[in-house]
């Protein structure tokens, strides 16, 4: 590193470029981080894709399997169902939390509120809690002797009380609502950051034109937070697609596979039933879907920015 500072001025003299443009020394600064990233993130992604073309139990030697794993993946009703569950979870993680975030943003831009810092601190809190802890909290809330069923009984709706996480119909929505809980504060804070940049005159003009709460939201706030909305949609959708921790720690995919998601199947196949190639194929498809969502939305985002 001390070599770097000694050598720094040299290229300037050789190339005669303006002071302030050392170029070769930049690689010295870039290299350590780049190497760590390539070795421990980028290269393993490539390896995952490669493994997805093999049949392997993790112990004996690998056998070339061509597209066999992918054929099995798309042919298996269990794996297809898991991807379907992910789509359902997007409804809870992304759509519900965006709806709540938009509703609160509309309220908070229409009626100036005090104590914004306080509300931000509280509403952002779920983002900081370890997902394993969140899973424990909700396992208790959904427990037959937990707060939710107790609440239902206390308001005379005891017939709705059930073992939420063990229920064929309700397990997946129950897991999804955990996602809504994790996400909505983040969404709100993103949207509020966008709303703060909307010029106050736009609201005044809208009010002069006699716009009510709804018109004001549609005409001023919504276009003003469009970029933030796209970012929030990307982040929450990606969280919904990953979602390993919550499923593993609440339902473990049960009851009878009703809450199996791709990342859980990936773990199960690779490390519990030792079908490493198939697990790699699931991981590859999952990563491809996440990349498409991220790239697709960032495309919209740049267009909207221009």
């Amino acid at each position, binding site marked *: 590193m001390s070599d770097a500072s000694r050598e720094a001025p040299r290229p300037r003299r050789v190339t005669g470029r303006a002071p302030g*443009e050392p170029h070769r020394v930049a690689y010295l600064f870039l290299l350590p981080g780049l190497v760590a*990233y390539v070795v421990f993130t980028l290269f393993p992604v490539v390896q995952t894709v490669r493994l997805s073309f093999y049949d392997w139990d993790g112990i004996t030697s690998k056998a070339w399997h061509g597209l066999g794993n992918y054929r099995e993946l798309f042919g298996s009703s269990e794996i297809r169902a898991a991807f379907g569950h992910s789509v359902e979870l997007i409804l809870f993680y992304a759509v519900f939390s965006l709806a709540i975030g938009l509703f609160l943003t509309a309220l908070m831009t229409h009626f100036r509120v005090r104590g914004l810092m306080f509300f931000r601190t509280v509403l952002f809190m779920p983002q900081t809690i370890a997902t*394993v802890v969140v899973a424990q909290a909700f396992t208790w809330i959904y427990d037959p002797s937990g707060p939710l069923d107790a609440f239902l009984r206390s308001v005379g709706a005891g017939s709705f009380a059930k073992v939420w996480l063990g229920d064929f119909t309700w397990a997946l929505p129950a897991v999804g609502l955990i996602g809504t809980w994790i996400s909505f504060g983040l969404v709100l804070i993103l949207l509020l950051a966008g709303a703060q940049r909307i010029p106050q005159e736009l609201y005044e003009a809208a009010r002069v034109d006699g716009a009510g709460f709804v018109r004001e939201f549609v005409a001023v706030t919504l276009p003003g937070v469009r970029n933030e909305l796209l970012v929030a949609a990307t982040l929450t959708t990606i969280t919904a697609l990953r979602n390993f921790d919550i499923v593993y720690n609440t339902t473990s995919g049960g009851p009878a596979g009703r809450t199996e998601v791709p990342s859980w199947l990936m773990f199960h196949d690779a490390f519990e039933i030792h079908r490493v190639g198939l697990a790699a194929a699931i991981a590859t498809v999952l990563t491809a879907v996440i990349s498409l969502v991220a790239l697709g939305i960032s495309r919209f985002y740049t267009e909207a920015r221009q």
Partner: protein
Amino acid sequence: MTSRLDRYSTYAALGLFSALAIYPLVSILFLAFHKKTDNVTGFSLPTTISFHTFTAAWTEGGFAKGMWGSFLVAASVTAVAAALSLLTGYALGTMRFRGSGIWFNLMVLGLIFPYEATVIPLYYDFQDVHLSGTYWTLILPQIGQSISLGTFWMRAVFLTTPRSLVEAARIDGAGSLRILRSVLFPQVRPALLTLCVLVFMYTWNEFLLALVMLQGSNNTTAPLGLSYFAGVTRSGDPTKVAAAAVMVALPVVAVYLVLQRHFIRGVLAGALKG
């Protein structure tokens, strides 16, 4: 002019959602302050202010080890990733060199990859080099992943530093390392702290890697320890699981409450600049 009623209903809505955001945490905190024999149902208030459940969970779940493991991993990842990101961000944010755009895009690509995309080969690679079950298997991959976020973040920060400062220092004969240390570092320090806070939080809370990498080993992390402890203890005594969950969440919550501006600013800036 908005009516008083409208204003109150706004506060009511905000209050309701704030309560919902905090309730699950309060519910396990309350549960932890019960005795097993209370046979807790629903949302009962604490019956005891003894820390018995906490001490019992701490010993029975072996949380001293898990907390230490998490601390070791999170501190190492944060220190190394922050240092390396400081350097990559410096290069990409203040210097012009061939391929800088390509390198940047390549590194930011890592923001998309979940651990699901890397954990399978990483597990077998570490087995090949005889590191299975050690904390290296958590530290190294998380350094790699955090550098994506860190490079993205620090480059943006360096881009906002005034070029005139750098040029003046260079004319005075300062080398690149000297400029970073004495001229730019004081300027980017607050942003670097934000990055550290975020990386520490993500690393402390990480679960999938720990579950895969530490299987069959004596080493553990706080979230992994909690997951095992809940698995074997919940049906017997949910109050102890609740106490354990509170303890695992506590370090990050404490840091959050002290440095919350850093958290919110970091997540916002990280998300919106993309």
